[in-house]
């Protein structure tokens, strides 16, 4: 089957069990991340460095993720993706703790960068597994389950984190524990699920696709641009600029920002199954166009808010 587009059976193809397990692992990752993320800027601030240096910790983490992604994808394509997903989770657990206990700013920077590299190996291996086990007719719903797991964990994270905040290393310990739990889940359940759901394991070379080959496909360029735009608005804008905007222009407290983010995140989780069904039974293009226009409209509404408020 080369494409599951508009096939009559499209909506009935079941989502493989392995995808549900992957989503479970993603809940652990998202939950842990949601708990640990607010602590990281405090760690840098503790060393009494400039704001620029403190934001360098975040940049080092992101840069490490970008640099490590291509080799991670080659490793996941060649080796069995389940351990490639699980082992870095243990590495992330350890490096986060070491970052929390770092005696110097350089140490903190180093452990965060190493942790960033490890997390991207997990992300890429998880997606490698997802696209290997999800049949064409269920790809939309499978992606929705995968994506929803991470988001749901990320939403609950700060709520749980609020309870344990104040105890210095506790959020990082909980993060590490959740990662280890997810890693064990991945290693034990996915090793088995993968064997059950992919009977025709081709050789490693035929399983791997080069970037050039993908880029020649228009659909790949559309997917990458969508991802870029989506992260720009849904991640970049939502978590950095909007909180500043709410405080500076609308003159509202952080509680309102929190409520707004919770509302957006909850909607995103609740709408995921609908997006999945639409993607499988209607078309890939429809949801992509609607999503792009809706994101554009949501950003423009904020611009109108500023005009009316100021």
């Amino acid at each position, binding site marked *: 089957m080369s494409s599951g*587009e508009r096939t009559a059976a499209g909506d009935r193809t079941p989502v493989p069990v392995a995808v549900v397990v992957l989503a479970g692992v993603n809940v652990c990752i998202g939950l842990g991340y949601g708990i640990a993320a607010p602590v990281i800027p405090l760690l840098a601030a503790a060393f009494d460095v400039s704001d620029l240096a403190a934001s360098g910790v975040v940049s080092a983490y*992101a840069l490490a993720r*970008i640099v490590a*992604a291509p080799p991670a*994808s080659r490793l996941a*394509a060649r080796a069995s993706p389940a351990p490639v997903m699980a082992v870095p989770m243990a590495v992330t657990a350890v490096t986060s703790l070491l970052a929390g206990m770092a005696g110097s700013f350089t140490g903190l920077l180093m452990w965060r960068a190493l942790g960033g590299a490890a997390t991207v190996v997990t992300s*890429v291996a998880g*997606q490698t597994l*997802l*696209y290997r086990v999800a049949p*064409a007719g269920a*790809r939309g719903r*499978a*992606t929705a389950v*995968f994506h929803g797991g991470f988001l749901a964990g990320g939403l609950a994270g700060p709520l749980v984190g609020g309870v344990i905040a104040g105890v210095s290393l506790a959020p990082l310990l909980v993060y590490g524990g959740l990662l280890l739990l997810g890693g064990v889940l991945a290693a034990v359940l996915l090793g088995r699920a993968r064997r059950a759901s992919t009977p025709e394991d081709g050789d490693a070379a035929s*399983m791997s*696709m*080069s*970037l050039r*080959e993908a880029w020649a496909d*228009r659909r*790949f*360029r*559309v*997917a*990458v641009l*969508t991802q*870029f*735009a*989506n*992260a720009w*608005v849904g991640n*970049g*804008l939502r*978590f*950095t*600029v909007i909180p*500043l905007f709410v405080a500076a222009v609308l003159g509202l407290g952080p509680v309102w920002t929190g409520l707004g983010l919770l509302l*957006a995140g909850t*909607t*995103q*989780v609740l*709408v*995921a199954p609908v997006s*999945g069904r639409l*993607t499988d039974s209607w078309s890939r*293009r429809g949801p*992509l*166009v*609607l*999503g*792009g*226009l809706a*994101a*554009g*409209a*949501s950003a423009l*509404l904020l*611009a109108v808010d*500023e005009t009316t408020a100021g």
Partner: protein
Amino acid sequence: MVLSGVAGSLGAVAGGALLGDVLDGRSGPPIAWYQIAFDVAGVVGPLASGAMAEASTYSAAFVLAAAVSVLSAAVAVAGRPRRAR
């Protein structure tokens, strides 16, 4: 914020499924670059938006974000991603 949540869900799900269509059971660097698009936007987006908000107004940053989104919708229309290979 509700609209932004709906948009995020549609884009992530349909974009991911489209990547799956391109791969068609295979794996490797395309997955890495799909992930990199997310991480790069996560770094560049706030920097560019913050710079615009500082230099002019928050509205400028929001209009820029809207332009990036509408561009992705336009490319999705032009790219005809429903066609099988």
